[in-house]
Structures are given as C-alpha cells and as structure tokens.
C-alpha cells in the first residue's frame, strides 16, 4: 500500500492524570473514507482535536504527505489542507451564510480599501453560493443569517464549507447528527463526492448503519486505544457493535 496521506503515530493525550488517548496509530489515504467509531469517552473527540490542530498531543508524531508536521493552532492545519467539521456546529449564528463560508479567509476590496481590511461581501456571497452548489447540497441564500436556517440547512452550510476548502483531508465529527433521513443521505453523498475528488475523509459517527454504508475502512477506539482497524467488508453491524463495546473478547 502507498504511504498514507495523513497519519498519526503512537499519539497520546493526557489531561492532567486522565489519559484520553493512549498510543494510537491512525492513517488515512487519499480517496478513502475511514469510519472512526467508539463509545462515549473512547477518545474519538480527542483524536479529532489532535488531527485538526485544536489540541497538541502530549506525545507522538503527525505526518502529512510523509512530512512530519506539528500544529500550533487549527489555523496551521487548515492552511495545510486539513478541514474539520465539529460536532457542535462550527458556525457563527449571527453571521450570514456567505460570511461563515469565508470566515477566517475573507476576500477584500481592491486597492487601498482592501489594505485597510474592507471586505468584498458581494464576491464572497457569490462564491459561497457557487461553492455550496458545487458540493451538491441544498443551498440557502448567501445573505441570510445562519440563525434563520433550519438544522439541516446549517449542517449543509458547515459541510459545504469544509468540503469546498479542504485540499487534502476532511474530518467530519458526527455530521449526520440531528438530521432527518433524507438530509443524512445527502450528507453521505457529499462524503462520497469528497472521496471522488481525492480527499481523505474521516467520518466520526455513532450511527453505525451510516458508517457501514459509506466507509472503506473502520477504526475502532476503546478507552483511548485503537482496538480494531480493518476494511469495512470485514464488519457487520453485530461485530462492529461488539468491537466497540468490547463484548467480543468475552466469547
């Protein structure tokens, strides 16, 4: 197998005396969807935060495109092409759709006004609309505030933003939570489109049927350790659940 696109080796994270992540190895290849599953407190969120640059691991190494990297902030990871969609919406409800899509990478007016930091809202709104449309999800008007959207529309904007900005890896933490069946189906389609684009997709979810349906490989975390890492074809719902809870070992 070729070298992974994004990889962490022997990564650990301690919060005081609590070991949230204990020597985990994790890889993601280009054009692959990996499901990351585990019970509450298994360390999924901690691993996501290490991957996204939100947390610095206590020990271990991170490699992107075979280069060792170290993230001091989410900004570093974003600039390197690693986008993360967090479980609790990473959108600012009072800002418009366009402002949210371009948050942190605003476009400026031309000339002296731009140098002073004045924004080109018209272009940002237009491009935001095009980006979201390209991703293939129902797009609300760019000038509407996020707080005026339904839960499904908000999630669509958040995912659309992450997919359109990601150049290498996209990490989706519970993207189908609180969504109806049709909207969840749309999200899964967006993930397949991202995979077809050659992105590495990390899909964190408690909804096991979604994980089994869309992923190529499944990684299971339990009590901060990786306990399984195998192609999705080797799992069925029962075996996956057993691995997550640890009940398989009793047999």
């Amino acid at each position, binding site marked *: 197998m070729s070298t992974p696109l994004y990889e962490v080796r022997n990564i650990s994270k301690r919060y005081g005396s609590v070991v949230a992540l204990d020597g985990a190895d994790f890889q993601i290849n280009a054009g692959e969807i990996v499901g990351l599953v585990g019970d509450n407190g298994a360390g999924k969120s901690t691993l996501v935060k290490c991957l996204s640059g939100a947390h610095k691991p206590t020990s271990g190494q991170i490699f992107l495109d075979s280069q060792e990297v170290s993230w001091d902030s989410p900004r570093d990871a974003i600039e390197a092409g690693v986008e993360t969609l967090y479980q609790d*919406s990473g959108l600012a409800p*009072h*800002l418009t759709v366009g402002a949210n899509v371009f948050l942190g990478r605003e476009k400026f007016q031309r000339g002296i006004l731009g140098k002073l930091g*004045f924004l080109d809202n018209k272009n940002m709104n237009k491009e935001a609309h095009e980006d979201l449309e390209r991703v293939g999800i*129902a797009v609300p008007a760019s000038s509407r505030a996020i707080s005026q959207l339904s839960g499904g529309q908000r999630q669509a904007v958040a995912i659309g933003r992450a997919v359109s900005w990601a150049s290498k890896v996209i990490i989706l933490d519970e993207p189908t939570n609180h969504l109806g069946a049709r909207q969840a189906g749309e999200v899964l389609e967006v993930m397949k489109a991202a995979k077809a684009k050659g992105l590495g997709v990390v899909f964190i979810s408690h909804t096991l049927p979604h994980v089994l349906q869309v992923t190529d490989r499944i990684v299971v975390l339990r009590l901060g350790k990786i306990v399984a890492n195998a192609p999705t074809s080797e799992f069925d719902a029962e075996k996956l659940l057993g691995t997550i809870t640890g009940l398989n070992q009793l047999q």
Partner: protein
Amino acid sequence: MSTQEQTPSVLKRLIGNQQFLLLLVWFGMVAFFTAFNSIFFSVAVFGNILLDWAPVVLMAIGQTFVIVSGGIDLSVGSTVALSGVTAAFFMQGWTTDGKNQWVTILAGTLVAGLVGISIGLINGFLITKAKIVPFIATLVTMGAAAGLAIVYSGGAPIAGGPEKAITLSVPWFGPFSTPGLIVVAIVVICGLFLHLARFGRYTYAIGSNEFAARTAGINVNRHYLKVYALSGFLSGLAGMYFYCRLGAGAPTSGYGGELDAIAAVVIGGAALTGGVGRLSGTVLGALILTTTTSGLIIIGVAPDWKQVVVAILIAAAVLLQGSKSGTRGKS
C-alpha cells in the same frame, strides 16, 4: 436549490428596525421637551447636548465593540479619570517649560490615548492570559484606575496646562465644537470598521460563537486584546475631551461613565450575549441619554429623574430584543 427570500413591506421593515425606532423616540423627546419649554429647541441647547454626548459616545463606541465580542468593559469611566489626570500633569509640565500650546494639547491627547491603551491591554491580558471573565477583569482595572487617579491627583483637579484647551469646547459649526466634530469623524471611521471591515467581522464572529471563530483559524486572543485596547484608547480620548471642557484633569471626570456607555449600547440594540449590535444604535442611544439629562433640567424636573427614564429605556430595549429573537427562533 436556492431558497428565495421574501421581502417584507417597507413599513414592516422600519418597525423592525431598532435605529428607526430610536430616532422616533428621540424626535418624540425633542417634541416633548420643546412643548414644555420652547427654549429647548435652540442651537445653544443642542450644542450643550452634543458637548455631553461626545464623551459618552467615545466610551460607548469601544463598549459596542467589546459587547459585540461578547464581553463587557467596566473600566471605561475610571480610564477617563486616570488618562485625564495623567495628561493634565504632562501638559502642566510642558506649559511650565513654555512649549507651544497646540503642540502641548496634541501631545497631551497622545498621552491620554496611551494611558487608555495600557489599561485596555491590561484588561485584554487579564481576560486572555489569566482567563478572568471580562466582568471581573475590568472591575479590577476599574477600581485600580479610579484609585490611582485620586491618589495621583491628590483628589483635586490638575490645572495649569495650556489655556487654549478650554476654548476648543466652544461650538462654532452649528451646535458642534472642534472636539465634537472629531468625535463624529471617529464614530464614522469606527462604524466603517465595525460593519464593513474584517476587524468588525471577527468581532461579531467571536461574540456569536467563539469556538467557531477559533476553529476557523481566527486568533481570538489577539482580537480580544485589540478590542479592549480600542475601548481603552477611546476612553483615554474621552479623558482628554473632559480636560478640554474643564481646562483641568479631574479625578472625578468620567465617574459612572461605564454605566452610561453600557446603557447607550444596550438601548442601541446590542445584546450582552454578543454577536448583535449596530454602532448607529449606540450613537442614538447616547444621544437619547444626554438629551434626557438636558431636557429634564430645562423643563425644571430634577435631573435625578434621568436614572428612571434611562431604566425604562433599557427595559424597553431589552424587551424589544427578546421579542425579536423570539420570532427568529420560531421561523
């Protein structure tokens, strides 16, 4: 798929527009006070209202940025006092040395601004590094700055600076004085940066959802520092403004100013939870506050009634906000 927005009627939009309602309230006040005493409707009275308005609005501009970012700055009134006293000592020295008066006034303005920025940066560090909530952090600097201003000045106004400073506070452009015009220019510039530039966009984003701002790669801590430094700087300028009005730097200048500033911002439609507010609302809020004070004096009512009127206005503004977010939640 794109959802089409429906355009509400002009009347509906105006009624839902806080700035428009504030303007109506202000016109109503002017009509009310004029009906009781026709002297109220004169350039002299408006000039006086604007003289009172300018320092309140200076503090309230910074407060708008702070409140939109989800914080609060209680230290602005004390910053006015300390920066005014410090600038007064500085200008006293330069005047004794026989330096040019205008140069001395400019340098004094710079000193007042720097004192304000310093207090703002201390607030910023207490909030971002020491992780103290803004209310407590700025309560600390509020007390410290007020105390320092009294100790430093010995409790008395510091005069002996450039004599021309006080002449600046005479209105010459209609009801506007030179410092008043400068304040108007500052309002416009800050409004542009709050509503059209990235600085404002980040301020709203942080107040709306700090986590989202952080994960979008915004340096949130640095932005907090800038916002509190701006609030301190503008309060420092308000300190210099009071110096020009009194011809001295008094440790009592700006006393209670934080409450006027916060009241102006809240009446102007900002939410203390962050992410909401318009500078035009703040400007009108400050205008309504100072118009109330002058109006009550002119119609012969004890100005202490101002507190009651302000309380009613704040309650009305908050109720209006609650009803707005209520309808938003339903849709």
